């Protein structure tokens, strides 16, 4: 599954890991994250994320 990177702080959203600290279970694709989800490290908006290389 495609990973996504925060352009502000470099955090990588890895769908295989999810974001358990914010209730996102492992296996959740980036597209299924709510629009209100934000970077757990710096708070950047979901819409600012870019596909990671």
């Amino acid at each position: 599954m495609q990973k996504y990177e925060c352009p502000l702080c470099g955090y990588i959203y890895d769908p295989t890991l999810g974001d358990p600290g914010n209730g996102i279970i492992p296996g959740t694709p980036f597209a299924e994250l709510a629009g209100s989800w934000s970077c757990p490290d710096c708070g950047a908006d979901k819409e600012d994320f870019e596909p990671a290389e």
Partner: protein
Amino acid sequence: MSTCPDIPGADSPYRALPISDHVYWVGAVDWALRDFHGYATERGTTYNAFLILADKVTLIDTVKRPFADEMFARIASVIDPAKIDVIVSDHSEMDHSGCLPDVLARAPHAALYASPNGVKALTDHFHLAHPILAVKDGEQIDLGNMALTCLETRMLHWPDSMVSYLDADRILFTNDAFGMHYATAERFADDLDPAILYHEAKNYFANILTPYAGLVLKVLDRLQGLALPMDIIAPDHGPLWREDTESILGWYTEWAEQCPTTKALIVYDTMWGSTEKMARALAEGLAAGGAQPKLIPLSGSHRSDVALELLDAGALLVGSPTLNNNLFPTVADVLYYLKGLRKQNLIGLAFGSCGWGGEAVTQVQELLTAMKVEQVVDPLKIKYVPTGDVLARCVALGTQIAETLRARTQEHNDAEV
């Protein structure tokens, strides 16, 4: 945690300085600082904290902890620190938050505010029992007879960063933005040499804000849109901007845009003079081709001086000898530092002399690639001492890079018109 410093007596040399109708500067001057987490600070620095004498007595940021006495003495010259009602942390880094636990020990009833990310960061720093209140982007903190409006500036330069605006005195408190490491007895920029202000503000931008240049432009746009009347821009380091708020805002726009230029930085070190000969020949070629080369020998230059010079450069040429099959240590230091700063719009070249192996040139090439520096010519690696032919090749490569720089700059300027 160590014990809270005693409040200095009336014989303390430190006094608060009024900067507007309701606000006093109560910070500290660190004349001796020469290294700020790897950034050389030859002029020292200041840690600016501000006391607002509103109905609710308010402290904006604190100072680095070894300077707690100085800050408390300045506060005590105006008001008993126990009377502080509100503390606002615009930035969680310890040169500004370091005395928060001491202030809370003196004023246990005070309300401590930070951005939502600041709440997390301060919690992870100080593990306080005292509650920390989140103030969201655009929200106001009521100080009774006036208000403080908080605007988040995430990643400028930490996730927690915010600025706060005091409408009553038209002051924008900007945490690290618009600051510089410059210890002075004067508190206002218009009392200081503009050339030094430009140099040190640029130095600060280059070493701290370059990775977030795109965000700087967004914040500048937002500030312009808000059109807040600003009599004073009050950063957390260095002098405050009063008469000349437009100049620092203009400089930030210039530095954040990172437009292509024809300045070419040649950063190198050398073991027996061969990589240096190549560097000097490249400079001749760059100058002949119409670029402005600048050589930086790493044997006598600090990484943060390289970052400063790179801010307005269009090309980065890096020369390294190979030492025990690896990058020369000074070159490794600088390249890893620059990689983190993510300067945009650079072209470059890896070069160097070696006795055998020659791995360093390949390693430079790989690091430049990772830094997204476009390498318009192939790396140049030679054995031992350069011949006349090699130096002629360096001159030709320099000229070729200069021509590329001029074309890119011209293209950019044409697009701007």
